[in-house]
């Protein structure tokens, strides 16, 4: 296909016009629509994609580095109501400048995070959860603990070069995860 049919009416040599001539006809549109429906049916985007993205984007730091989730270890049955204590899930995030590993353990009604960041440095971490923002100091060895975290979506924000309660400094964000 892809002929010049259609280009002739619109000033043939111009590459933009020529490209315009390759616009789809109705049959193509129909095929693409059917194809879209196929994919939607076979592989629908879960609502959580948008939910989690919107949650994560509600962060205030615009100029932050983004940590990506690189590894996740889940206990065999990651059921929400499983036995306590044993249910630790370990998640590792990574960016060009920082790695964070967190161990998530379920408690009665809440969740506890034991975290470690590398390279180790004293700074501050915040945890945005639905209702409130918790924060904790990171010690010289890169360790931190966040406790009594409500279940649900949460996002970590690391503020480098910042002591607890201070301001300024670079921020690094994780995507939102479900605790």
């Amino acid at each position, binding site marked *: *296909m*892809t*002929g010049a049919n*259609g280009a002739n009416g*619109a000033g043939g040599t111009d590459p*933009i*016009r020529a*490209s*315009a*001539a*390759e*616009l*789809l*006809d*109705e*049959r*193509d*549109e129909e*095929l*693409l*629509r*059917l*194809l*879209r*429906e*196929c*994919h939607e*049916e*076979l*592989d629908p*985007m*879960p609502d*959580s*994609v*948008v939910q*989690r*993205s*919107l949650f*994560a*984007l*509600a*962060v205030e*730091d*615009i*100029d*932050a580095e*983004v940590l*990506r*989730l*690189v590894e996740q270890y889940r206990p065999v049955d990651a059921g929400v109501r499983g036995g306590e204590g044993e249910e630790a899930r370990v998640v590792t995030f990574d960016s060009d400048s920082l790695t964070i590993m967190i161990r998530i353990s379920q408690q009665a009604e809440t969740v506890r995070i034991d975290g470690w960041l590398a390279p180790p440095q004293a700074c501050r971490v915040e945890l945005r959860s639905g209702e409130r923002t918790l924060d904790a100091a990171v010690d010289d060895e890169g360790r931190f603990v966040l406790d009594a975290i409500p279940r649900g979506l949460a996002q970590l924000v690391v503020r480098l070069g910042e002591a607890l309660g201070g301001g300024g400094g670079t921020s690094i*964000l994780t*995507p*939102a995860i479900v605790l």
Partner: protein
Amino acid sequence: MPNSTVPEPTLPEPAAPDEAAAVHSASVESASVDGAAETASADRNTRLAALLESARSGRRESLNEIVIELSPVLWQVARAQGLDREAAEDVIQCTWLSLLRHLEQIHSPLALTAWLITATKREAWRMHTAHRAEQPLDQNQIADTADPRPLPEELVLLAERHHDVWRAVRQLPQRCQELLRVVAFSHRPDYDTLAVALGMPRGSIGPTRGRCLAKLRTLLDPDGSGITGTSGGLA
């Protein structure tokens, strides 16, 4: 099979296509073939442009609307790259977060879509390679190999009227399947930019899309009732 995951180790910072792209889109619209769809597409483009403008000035509500609008395309991009559902979700979220930093430099809906797709692809690719290193032989391998036949369970899920199309699509080369999958979730004026973001040479986009569609039509209608010039050798 070497599909588009050929090493693109330094896929550039999703480069924002320039003014030319915007001009292009305008011309494409004015040279429209069928009015209604074109108008809808133009309306959408205008809406997206307004949202972008507003998001860039700091309105998070507008950014949220953009997320709702464009996430489905990114889902298809991530999945077409062979990511599992969970990984696709993580990648898309990271793409949106990264956008916060770059919003300032993105001036048109075209540039926005291209940036997002490129970022998603790059992350998907990175995740892919990380996975490969861990598990030398896994489903990634399978995802790269086109299976010419639809899986029975796919057909069960699909409505009758989709069966022919799906059977035909599954016979296309992997690259065509990927391209058409993304294109099907995009909108017309974005095509060229999209294809650039898909890692194809700018000049080959239209023709490739055309060839993929032509091939698809031939498969669906071998006798070529009225369709001409569709014999074309597909790569």
